[in-house]
């Protein structure tokens, strides 16, 4: 997910500079080590989607759209609806993004976000079965990255949960002939709670939250933790070819717990605002 082209000499110089700065608890954009950039969330931005959200985390900008369709269940979960999260880092998102099928970074991005939503049981998929074993509702979340400046994981996660939480759909029912019909009644998706993703980077000995592209270009390792409403961990992923000490992992879980609470308030604020119209 590093959108900054790496040059070995410059990379090393930047890293030295960055570590020196971080040792004084400072960052290039004057944030504290534990501060996120400003987060803005706007929902209901695409009328044709069942739900949508545009999220900005600093200069990182993503847009998520939910489409709900009738589909076939997976053979191993015949009585559950489907959730599919897909992401695309569009060529317009940075000078280094290229068109083409999603690369491993984009696949990891989508899969980690998907894991957070799925494992927190945010959507009650068992309520999305129409004809168990035959027809279920499929929730497709497509996230397009419009501008990259680091921490695509969290931005994509917030856009995904905000678009799901504000999704609306007609009530589907099965009539006496076994046909699937739509009623005029518009209902939300069955939502249980909001999972919140918190991504941290280790640069030298420092652990920072919400890394920018510049910070990601020199980071040693990245760790993402997703917390559910009860403060439990529900998904996690270490990234980058660097290491973390065992204590750093435990520290990261404590940081994530505090940050997730703060950010959940921001996301919920926007959802409530949207619900009130």
């Amino acid at each position, binding site marked *: 997910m590093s959108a900054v082209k790496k040059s070995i000499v410059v990379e090393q110089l930047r890293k030295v500079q960055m570590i020196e700065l971080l040792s004084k608890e400072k960052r290039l954009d004057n944030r504290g080590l534990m501060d996120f950039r400003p987060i803005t969330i706007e929902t209901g931005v695409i009328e044709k989607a069942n739900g949508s959200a545009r999220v900005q985390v600093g200069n990182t900008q993503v847009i998520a759209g939910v489409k709900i369709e009738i589909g076939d269940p997976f053979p*191993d979960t015949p009585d559950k609806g489907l959730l599919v999260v897909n992401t695309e880092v569009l060529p317009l998102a940075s000078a280094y993004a290229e068109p083409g099928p999603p690369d491993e970074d984009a696949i*990891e991005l989508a899969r980690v976000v998907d*894991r957070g939503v799925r494992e927190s049981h945010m959507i009650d998929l068992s309520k999305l079965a129409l004809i168990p074993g035959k027809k279920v509702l499929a929730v497709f979340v497509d996230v397009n990255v419009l501008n990259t400046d680091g921490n695509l994981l969290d931005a994509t996660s917030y856009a995904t949960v905000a678009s799901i939480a504000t999704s609306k759909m007609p009530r589907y029912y099965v009539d006496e002939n076994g046909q699937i019909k739509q009623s005029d009644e518009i209902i939300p998706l069955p939502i249980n709670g909001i999972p919140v993703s918190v991504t941290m980077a280790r640069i030298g000995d420092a652990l920072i939250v919400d890394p920018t592209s510049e910070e990601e270009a020199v980071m040693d390792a990245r760790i993402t933790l997703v917390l559910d409403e009860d403060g439990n*961990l529900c*998904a996690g992923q*270490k*990234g980058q*070819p660097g*290491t973390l000490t065992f204590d750093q992992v435990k520290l990261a*879980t404590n940081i994530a717990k505090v940050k997730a609470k703060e950010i959940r308030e921001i996301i919920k604020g926007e959802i409530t605002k949207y619900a009130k119209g």
Partner: protein
Amino acid sequence: MKELIDEKGLRIDGRRVDELRPLKIEVGVLKNADGSSYIEMGKNKIVVAVYGPKEVHPKHQALPDRSVLRCRYHMAPFSTDTRKPPQPSRREIEISKVIREALEPALMLEEYPRTAIDVYLEVLQADGGSRCAGITASAVALADAGISMRDMVVACAAGKASGQVVIDLNDVEDKEGEADMPIAIMPNLNQLTLFQLDGILTPEEFEKAFDMAINACRTIYDAQRKALMDKYFGKAEVGEE
């Protein structure tokens, strides 16, 4: 939900919550490869080959200051309950990436500039925890290939099944259980190189599972060492330190 632990505290395969599956590691199983290994961990059967350091193709991937590590985790179509189509899935692409990132910290890639090191993992049979078994086997194959290493890399998952924290989840526990958390460590440097979590753990359960997985990695590390000693020092000398 399916009961995964019985009233005696035993799991569906008869193990205790903190018991590993039977483990077998062999070194140098493929003659053409520069290094290779074979691992069985429960019903997981994985063969790993290392080719390199070698010339990089395509050339633009080459790095002037170090070797490029490339990993391919692939499941044989017959390795799973329902046939897995042979083309790489999104899951396999993600796992290939995290395996590469788990191994790379242990390798002294700076010793081999402008080269590539390829690690190919073929899962012949999958039984839950194949990425962990794959990492454990890959580190052995890399050592067998004579690649300079800072430490070994060893992996194991901990998780939660039927409300209890368990180690080394099998296929059923992975699918039906509440959580699965694979980790990889460098056992002498005490560094974490892989961390993933899939499922819900309370902060207390997380601490317990994390420590349990690290301990299990240390046990598996002994098996890695023994496998390498068996090949390079002969079976008779094992244990005479």
